[in-house]
């Protein structure tokens, strides 16, 4: 099903849901960067697409002109309910200071280095069990049967919700992020997720636990308990932002290793390379684009931006800017200078970045330990999702 009409002018009429763009955005960014580094489109409202590192990081730091009140790359064009389900959206990602500052501080301790070390054991056990299920068969869908299964279960553990609902959670998150241009599907998923967390909140009010949801309910700010909509929004954020993103990074990394034998062998033979390799894979295949909303008319690098325009914060393109990265289209697993912004830049730096890195590292370590030799199955079609989050959704590999 074609979701978009064809694009002939990427500078003035781009479409991030174009099938060719989802498959290979890199060559399009390279061309735009030299010819029209901030592209524009009027598809789904007035949107700008910067492609240079310097512009993207400058905008990320200019929170006065570029607000986070809407961060969805694909605007919601359906009918809004009269009373918004979540008046603050998904704090802290969808708010500016001052609300951003204190809501972010509520979540960050759950993702500190120390806390994340505590999640490593269960992540490793999970990876081992997943591989057990397909290793004898000699083939697997590395996206669906492995990458997709990992982050959702770790997040469920942190939130204190049952991991046997993983498929339901994954469905909601995909509907919100990957099928965002289908208003009905997107709204139904948000309502499903919202209703679920409302019920979970009620359970925890009666029976508090040690999980994130219970702890948020027990938190007081300035002497008063948190508004329930803040708790619900933050919980929904942890789920939505913690699933599709990391699973995409794991999938893209496995795709790279399945299609680049030299890199795969190198990483198997030299596991000490892993920390640098992780950063390089995150740079080259950054999954996440976030949006900002222009707060007042402003000219930025000669572009006449109007209040209400949407900026697609193209962190993935920033990470392939030759002004900043030597030979950016080449994956160098031991790249020494790698100031990448896969997790964003400025005050909205991904709150879960430590968790994402740990999951990516453990997922690759366990896979390579058990399956050091693998490749994409002959004749198999690898499919990618794109828009807000880019990564493989079907990745059939063989390891005979």
């Amino acid at each position: 099903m074609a979701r978009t009409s064809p694009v002939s002018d990427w500078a003035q009429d781009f479409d991030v849901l174009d099938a060719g763009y989802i498959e290979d955005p890199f060559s399009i960014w390279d061309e735009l960067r030299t010819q029209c580094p901030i592209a524009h489109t009027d598809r789904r409202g007035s949107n700008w697409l910067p492609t240079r590192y310097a512009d993207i990081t400058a905008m990320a730091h200019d929170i006065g002109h570029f607000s986070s009140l809407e961060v969805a790359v694909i605007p919601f064009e359906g009918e809004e309910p009269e009373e918004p389900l979540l008046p603050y959206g998904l704090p802290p990602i969808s708010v500016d200071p001052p609300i951003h500052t204190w809501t972010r501080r509520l979540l960050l301790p759950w993702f500190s280095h120390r806390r994340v070390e505590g999640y490593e054991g269960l992540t490793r056990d999970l990876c081992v069990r997943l591989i057990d299920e397909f290793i004898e068969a000699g083939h697997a869908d590395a996206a669906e049967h492995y990458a997709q299964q990992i982050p959702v279960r770790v997040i469920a553990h942190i939130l204190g919700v049952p991991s046997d609902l993983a498929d339901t959670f994954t469905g909601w998150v995909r509907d919100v992020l990957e099928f965002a241009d289908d208003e009905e599907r997107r709204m139904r998923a948000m309502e499903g997720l919202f209703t679920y967390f409302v019920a979970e909140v009620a359970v925890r009010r009666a029976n508090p636990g040690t999980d994130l949801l219970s702890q948020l309910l027990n938190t007081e700010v300035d002497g008063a308990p948190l508004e329930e909509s803040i708790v619900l929004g933050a919980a929904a954020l942890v789920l939505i932002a913690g699933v599709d993103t990391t699973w995409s990074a794991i999938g893209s990394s496995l795709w790279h290793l399945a299609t680049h034998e030299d890199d795969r062998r190198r990483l198997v033979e030299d596991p000490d390379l892993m920390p640098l390799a992780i950063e390089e894979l995150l740079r080259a295949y950054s999954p996440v684009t976030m949006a900002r909303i222009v707060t007042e008319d402003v000219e930025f690098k000669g572009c006449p931006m109007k209040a209400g325009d949407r900026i697609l914060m193209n962190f993935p393109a920033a990470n392939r800017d030759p002004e900043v990265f030597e030979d950016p289209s080449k994956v160098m697993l031991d790249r020494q200078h790698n100031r990448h912004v896969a997790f964003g830049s400025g005050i909205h730096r991904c709150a879960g970045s430590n968790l994402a890195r740990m999951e990516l590292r453990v997922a690759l370590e366990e896979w390579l330990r058990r399956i050091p030799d693998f490749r994409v199955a002959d004749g198999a079609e690898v499919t990618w999702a794109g828009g807000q989050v880019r990564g493989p959704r079907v990745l059939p590999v063989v390891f005979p």
Partner: protein
Amino acid sequence: MKIRVDPDKCQGHGRCYGLSSALFTTDDYGLSSVIGNGTVPPELEGKARLAIANCPEFAIEELED
């Protein structure tokens, strides 16, 4: 060699800690600081330079002696 993390610039990416947990520590909010008074042992100078070159916020600086 002596270095510091500028607390006004650090956003908690944790790249420096990932490169050298012997040089850097992070708090509950992910924010980094240099362990001790900022003096880098000679054997860790390479790591310190790497951390400076990898910080996405340009938050790590080498101090004059």
